[in-house]
């Protein structure tokens, strides 16, 4: 008599395998038995099945305790328990992708055969990926090791009505079996017959009520784990802010914590919360669902409402000079001061703030908001010297006196437009105009103004012009509104206030209008219409003139807002100005370019990020210590898998989110706005907008996975997700219900 014990999991087809073997033998005249051990086991639980065959009549009606051979349907079941009582020299057949030798190490006294029945089953579409039906493949493998003719097994399968992929699977497995049959000879048979039973529990006594002893984690073929992606907002933020992080804090109404997170990377949350073009919002995955989270206004809220007192760190001996007090310079100074370095900022103008101070009108960025954020920097001990313009010689002196110098002079060269006769009288640079407006030195009462350009300076100038008396303000831009670099909201607001936008229009020249009185200063701006052609190097479609489309716009004033470029005159001839490079190795101490000067990025956020990187770089130069405060600082030890790729909407389970419209925040009525330079936005009333953040690829502790875990073995402890793998059955509901792709399934 041959006795085979089969170990598998509920649902894998172990009993049917016993029947397949038995049928093959039955058809060749054997007496056979095939049966399972039935109890409360469920899908996935370890189960046993048995097969006996003999040329004689079989009389034993009990379980098989001392099998001749053992078949293991699931490699995770391999262990001492499955070979209990196995006769020395008997076969152990395992469904595994491992080589026979790897399995054989554990079983020196038995012959070992392996076959990847799972792969064969899946190839033949037997069962599902989570529960492949491997029994027909293993029937083929059993035929091979027990030297039962394969045709007998196939005949048995036909007898039982198995066809198609089952037959192919059995044939494939028959061929694919790998064998290790060298065994060490000196084994004693192990007795595994059941002994007498002891008295069991009575429910009349105190016994009972303890937890079950089964560790259902052994059923699992895969386990959930926690991963993290880079959210697109964090990835795109030029300042390097942990956008998801501060939104998460706000969503919990922890405004101070949110500000603290922002202050790790930026000294200017209130400023950026007003003037940032917010590329994070353009990248926001939520726009696939309804509309982007209003990150800008939320940053403003955190900056304006949050209260954080920054500790002054222990002072370090090194001193750093910063040239320029714009966002780049101040950001660098701020971060250096937070390391404890002595910082002095030199500013050529009478006031601190650079372009933030002069180039952005009060209705967008009130001076007192800027003052407050600068104060936070100076409170850290940063010294500011105003009215101190640094020239080439001055820079050399600084490089001698300080341990390092940062040059953050921004973009001071203004682009011009040659407009022909008379243009120079009427044309005004937007930046200069805005500075004059700030100082109450500009009036354009009754004037007809044309602003040339499509950036924020153009919009600010146009809107300021309306506020200082202009009767009509037009903006001409050579591409379409869609390509305008200005913040979309600002364009919208400008139009609301009465600014007239001419898209696809290029000014050509300024010509005096043939007026009767001749001296009103009224001119016509000759323009030509454009169309969008092929994309240029920047990816934007290049504007192309439409021949013969010339026309004239009346105007008394032209404001140019065509962009700026760096003024490199402070540097020695031939210096290569780039971010992170120590420009002037010849000078006594290192000198770095920071902000727009180095990056030509043109945004406040970009300058802030550049300043921070420079500060980190200098710190590394001084100490050798690598510190990261931005994105990389978010690599967490409690995450099983860190993906440094950006997560896009298609990797989220969007259907699990509720739609809810974004909050704009309140602003003044367009009619009220033009009365002076009052800030037109009044911000968000509360933090609720932050709850719209999808927290893409980052656990925001929503606890949905915890809620749904059927077993209650997934818990959150503090900020950690704790999976109790001793009991987790690996059902995967925590994965399918995680809307943000934080939980994933890892195959064992």
């Amino acid at each position, binding site marked *: 008599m041959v006795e085979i014990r089969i170990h598998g999991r*509920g*649902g894998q087809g172990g009993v049917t395998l016993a029947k397949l073997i038995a049928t093959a033998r039955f058809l060749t005249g054997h007496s056979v038995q095939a049966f399972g051990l039935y109890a*409360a*086991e*469920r*899908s*996935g*639980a370890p189960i046993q099945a048995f097969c006996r065959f003999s040329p004689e009549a079989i009389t034993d009606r009990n379980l098989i305790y001392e099998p001749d051979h053992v078949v293991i349907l699931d490699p995770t079941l391999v262990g001492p328990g499955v070979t209990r009582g196995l006769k020395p020299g008997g076969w152990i057949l395992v469904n595994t992708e491992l080589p026979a030798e790897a399995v054989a190490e554990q079983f020196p006294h038995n012959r070992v055969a392996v076959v990847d029945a799972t792969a064969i089953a899946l190839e033949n579409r037997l069962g*599902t990926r*989570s529960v492949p039906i491997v029994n027909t493949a293993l029937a083929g493998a059993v035929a091979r090791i027990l030297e039962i003719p394969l045709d007998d097994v196939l005949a048995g399968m036909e007898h039982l009505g198995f066809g198609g992929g089952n037959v192919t699977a059995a044939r494939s497995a028959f061929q694919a079996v790998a064998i290790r049959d060298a065994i060490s000879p000196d084994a004693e048979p192990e007795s595994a017959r059941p002994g007498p039973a002891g008295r*069991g*529990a009575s*429910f009349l006594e105190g*016994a*009972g*009520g*303890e*937890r*079950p*002893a*089964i*560790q*259902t984690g052994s*059923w*699992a073929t895969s386990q959930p784990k926690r991963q993290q992606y880079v959210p697109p907002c964090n990835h795109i933020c030029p300042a390097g802010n942990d956008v998801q992080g501060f939104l998460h804090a706000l*969503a*919990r109404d922890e405004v101070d914590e949110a500000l603290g997170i922002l202050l790790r990377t930026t000294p200017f949350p209130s400023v950026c919360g007003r003037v940032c073009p917010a590329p994070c919002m353009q990248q926001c995955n939520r726009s696939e*669902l309804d509309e982007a989270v209003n990150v800008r206004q939320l940053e403003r809220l955190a900056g304006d409402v949050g209260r954080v007192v920054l500790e002054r760190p222990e002072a370090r001996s090194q001193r750093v000079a910063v040239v320029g007090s714009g966002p780049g310079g101040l950001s660098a100074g701020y971060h250096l001061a937070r390391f404890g370095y002595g910082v002095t900022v030199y500013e050529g103008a009478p006031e601190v703030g650079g372009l933030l101070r002069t180039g952005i009108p009060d209705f967008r960025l009130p001076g007192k908001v800027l003052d407050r954020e600068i104060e936070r920097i100076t409170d850290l001990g940063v010294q500011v010297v105003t009215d101190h313009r640094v020239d080439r010689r001055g820079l050399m002196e600084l490089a001698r006196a300080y341990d390092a110098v940062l040059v953050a002079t921004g973009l001071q060269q203004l682009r011009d437009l040659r407009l022909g006769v008379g243009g120079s009288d009427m044309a005004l640079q937007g930046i200069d105009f805005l500075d004059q407006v700030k100082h109450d030195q500009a009036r354009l009462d009754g004037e007809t103004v044309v602003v040339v350009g499509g950036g924020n300076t153009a919009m600010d100038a146009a809107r300021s012009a309306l506020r200082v008396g202009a009767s009509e303000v037009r903006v001409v831009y050579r591409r379409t509104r869609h390509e305008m670099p200005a913040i979309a909201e600002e364009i919208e607001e400008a139009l609301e206030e009465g600014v007239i936008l001419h898209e696809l229009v290029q000014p050509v020249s300024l010509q005096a209008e043939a007026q009767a009185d001749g001296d009103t200063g009224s001119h016509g701006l000759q323009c030509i219409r454009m169309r969008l052609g092929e994309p240029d190097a920047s990816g934007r479609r290049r504007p192309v003139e439409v021949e013969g489309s010339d026309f004239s716009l009346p105007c008394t004033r032209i404001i140019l807002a065509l962009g700026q470029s760096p003024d490199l005159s402070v540097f020695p001839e031939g210096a290569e100005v780039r971010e992170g490079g120590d420009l002037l190795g010849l000078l006594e101490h290192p000198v770095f370019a920071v902000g727009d000067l180095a990056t030509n990025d043109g945004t406040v956020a970009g300058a802030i990020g550049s300043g921070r990187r420079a500060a980190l770089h200098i710190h590394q130069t001084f100490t050798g210590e690598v510190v990261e405060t931005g994105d990389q600082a978010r690599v967490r030890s409690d995450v099983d898998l860190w993906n440094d790729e950006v997560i896009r909407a298609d990797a989220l389970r*969007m*259907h*699990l*989110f*509720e*739609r809810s419209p974004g909050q704009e925040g309140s602003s003044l009525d367009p009619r009220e706005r033009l009365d002076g330079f009052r800030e037109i936005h009044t911000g968000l009333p509360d933090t609720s907008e932050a*709850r719209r953040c999808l927290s893409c690829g980052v656990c*925001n*502790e*929503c*606890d*949905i996975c915890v*809620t*749904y875990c*059927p*077993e*209650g*073995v997934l*818990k*959150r402890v503090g900020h950690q997700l704790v999976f109790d793998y*001793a*009991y987790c*059955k*690996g*059902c*995967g*509901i925590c*994965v*399918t*219900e995680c*809307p943000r792709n934080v939980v994933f*399934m890892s195959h064992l």
Partner: protein
Amino acid sequence: MSTTELPVNGSAPRRDMPGEIPPLSCEPLLRPGNTNCGGCGMSIGLTWLGRALEDLEQKAHLAIPACCGAVTAGAFPTTSYAMPTVATTFAAAPAVASGLASIRDLNGSEEQVICWAGDGGTYDIGFATLSAAAERNENILYICYDNEIYGNTGGQRSSATPPGARTTTTPHGKSESKKDVMSIMAAHGIPYAATLSVGHPEDFRQKLHTALTTSGMRFLLMHSPCPTGWKSEPAESVQLVRLAVRSGLFPLFEVFGGQRYRINAEPDWADPTEYFRRQRRFRPEEVDLGTTRRWARERFQRLKVLAEAFPA
């Protein structure tokens, strides 16, 4: 009438925002190490029932008739239930619970007496007992986890099996419809009857709270995914029952005193094809989609009329 609009994209009303589930002060009602299949809806229901009891600082005694839930306990003397439990005969749970609740009330004890039963024990063999307990307005909470099949015996039809579903006793798909047990239970005029879906945790929690703070007979019908019986992926369990709510196949509603109705979720009438396709108990040729959808719409319409005429 108050209903919650389901968003067009089909997400259920649910918590997708930060929040924290407070740790339990005691053991979970359903302990780890239970032998339920992975992805079993009953496991979710028991886990949530345990949390609701915890929320309300209540204890419970369970009476469980023959069903998977009785096997869940595991091998004596250990048990997967952290609260005292008795396995009753198949038809007897509401009667045994009536006895437990009677003595509980005579002694002024506070524990809930809860019947936790499958659809076989509820719709079929135990129905007379259940109906009688409802008619006597026994002070018990009866929760039917309806997986639409005799799961414990390996998957035979019950009167809760939906039309078209293959079971081992309907090898070509069930030709009869699903018994509308909610209407029958509501007709008893019991204080509270409601449907539950494990795809809607907040709604589930609220109704458990209502049930646990109401006295008299309370009946909860929970749509309980069964990956083994439905031949579906365990990980999709919750998605499936949520689809059933969306497509109107399993409406979420409450009936108070058998008279006043509240609908808890407005279906978006999503195409139920996906619901059927993801369960291999259904074959496309054996499911009459048109009739199914018409039936679902008409039933929901009826509920709506009731909820408008007799709002809770």
